[in-house]
């Protein structure tokens, strides 16, 4: 299903950066903030407005880890796998979340588009390792069980919505 795109909003983002090709990363970041991913339909529009070929837009989008061309869940778990978290056993946390949501390294988002599970290399909160973030909020000193509990309460919230 194609995401509905409000091109006026997209134009607003482009204008805020004066349509400069050098600002393409910032523009893509703001588009991603709107839709939680970068819908492919915006590329022809962006290309016309900024004067970059669609190919170069793709080349930039696919180079950077933070950009996603696939839709992501409403709730994004990011399990830190930086060195400090890794030596304090962050992998079992990741495995637990993936298992409970039937996700894997390849399939990171649930079919109902509710949850996404990813890894991130260091959030700078190493003092509290292992950590994970849920939609940007940092949860310190995690264990697989604590992560399960968080997931359980979030699932209940989703159901009651």
């Amino acid at each position, binding site marked *: 299903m194609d995401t509905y795109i409000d091109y006026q909003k997209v134009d607003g983002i482009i204008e805020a950066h004066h349509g*400069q*090709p*050098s*600002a*393409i*990363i*910032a523009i*893509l*970041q703001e588009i991603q903030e709107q839709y939680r991913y970068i819908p492919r339909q915006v590329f022809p529009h962006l290309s016309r407005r900024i004067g970059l070929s669609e190919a170069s837009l793709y*080349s*930039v989008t696919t*180079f*950077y*880890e*933070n*950009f996603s061309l696939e839709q992501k869940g409403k709730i994004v778990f990011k399990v830190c*796998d*930086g*060195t*400090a978290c*890794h*030596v*304090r056993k962050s992998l079992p946390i990741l495995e637990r979340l993936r298992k409970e949501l039937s996700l894997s390294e390849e399939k990171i988002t649930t079919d109902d588009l509710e949850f996404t599970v990813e890894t*991130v*290399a*260091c*959030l*700078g*909160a*190493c*003092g*509290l*390792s292992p*950590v994970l973030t849920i939609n*940007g909020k*940092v*949860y*310190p000193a995690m264990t697989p069980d604590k992560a399960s509990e968080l997931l359980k309460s979030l699932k209940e919230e989703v159901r009651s919505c």
Partner: protein
Amino acid sequence: MLKNKQELRDLRERCQRAAQDEVKKILVCAGTGCVASGSLEVYERFQIEMQEKGIPCSVEFMSDVHGVGLKKSGCHGLCEMSVMLRIEPEGYIYTKVKPEDCAEILTETIQQGRHVERLAYTKNGLVCKTQDEIPFYKKQKRVVLEHCGRIDATSLLEYLSVGGYTAFEKALFDMDKEGIVREISESNLRGRGGGGFKTGQKWSQVSRQKENKKYVVCNGDEGDPGAFMDCSIMEGDPHRMLEGMMIAGLACGSDEAYIYVRAEYPLAVSRLKTAISQAEKYGILGDHILGSDFNFHIHINKGAGAFVCGEGSALTASIEGKRGMPRVKPPRTVEHGLFNKPTVLNNVETFANVPVIIDKGASYFLGIGPGNSPGTKAFSITGTIANTGLIEVPMGTTLQEVIFEVGGGLKGGSKFKAVQIGGPSGACLTEEHFNLPLDFDSLKKVGAMIGSGGLVVADENTCMVEIARFFMSFTQKESCGKCVPCREGTKRMLKILERIVAGDGRDGDIDLLLDLAGTITATALCGLGKTAPSPVISTIRSFRHEYEAHIYEKRCPAHSCEKLKRLSINPETCKGCSKCSKVCPVEAISGKVKTPFEINSEKCIRCGACVEACKFDAVTEGW
């Protein structure tokens, strides 16, 4: 808007007086670590409680409210103890503070000046009231982090109250370009981002370029996992770094600067944005700064999650809106950098060192640490260490001092095995390096590097082959793919390491790893590629026996690699019922009924069917 030097001085004096008048202060740590532990909730609770108790609370420095100053400060360093706060004028440090502690702190400490012992840091039963009494701080020397935790990180006026922008004022009105470059050169300041290149030399090269347009770029893309020093500086004392960049602009004749910050540091981005807009408001940034003919504008670029963008030419490509890939050098960044113009590219900590050198002179800076690597270095110490956190010590402090005196030894008293320094580009140091002074040259001699300054401590339960695999999987994933040695070489090395930790290592794998490592180091395009094999080389050098145990004995000496776990039957609890041998799909279990059975680990595929089948829990998994 400040129009001239005198107005800046007057404002600074007013700030200094206001700071003296503001006797009581609560500084709540608002660094990433403490925020994650709920420091903002503590901050809010203080506001509510003060209102209820009728204590006047001043959340904004130099506002009309005269009362107890409540501030969001930068990182205090001892992240393990978050939420941390400092109470002035007593200098009390409270640790692990929860919102429900706020009322007691207010009635006891703020209103009656009494110390709340249960919130103090204690070590071996000894109560440490102030920062100076805490062993963690004793060996430290805070220069770059001087104000971190002591002022409000979101206030330009507070920065002025501790002498902020004095160095910039001096550079702008009392020094010429050559003078600034000379001072930095004489201080022997070396780049804190890893390589240790002389900052003065870099500045003088850019300064000599004849182009009209030049750029200053700050590398805040601290991608090294396990390092968060730059993050803490940007969050805790953003103006200090801006001041350093402005001085670089003056010295090199640049009017425009970019700060490239990792997207994973949202708090740093927002603090920097606040700092820039405040500086613009007061006329410290912008056109005709303080009435002079110096113009300077600073932009912030957020990274998009590519480790390679920490490399100079990749970083400038990313600011230009391109794929962040390094290019062949020369030409170097000082000649053809951002938008092909001469560019001063320095790391966050390097810029943060500049104001103190200009303000106090090169000789002050040279007085700290060894002459060839003077100054201090901020490190983040993490892993299995007692005091996880952010530290700053004079260059040349020994590893022993850092781990045991500052770091407080290993967590839970476990045995030290190694410390990884410099992240994925670095190496591991072991007991034999305990007396090694941590500075650029000494580390280089043992094949390591300071890198950005992340120290990850590993204890006896950490498998060094797995650590090497972890770093290789990181560099392999982050390889930009431009040059073959890094793109293909790291992939091959990773495959070999993966099979070793999975128990499928082959004879000759160690030599093959070293061979590949040699080729990659010699032929990769950029610094990140060249140093990618370092963790493997250094772990083989110091822990070859662990590699051999994995490969030849299919055993993990650290008892860490899951795939090398073996199943065995406890003869004490085994009743000899033969159920396990019946379910074993590979006929690895044998024995006589009513006597204990045995598992042949050569045949065993570790499917776990016997564990399920055994009613007496006699089949156990272990190393």
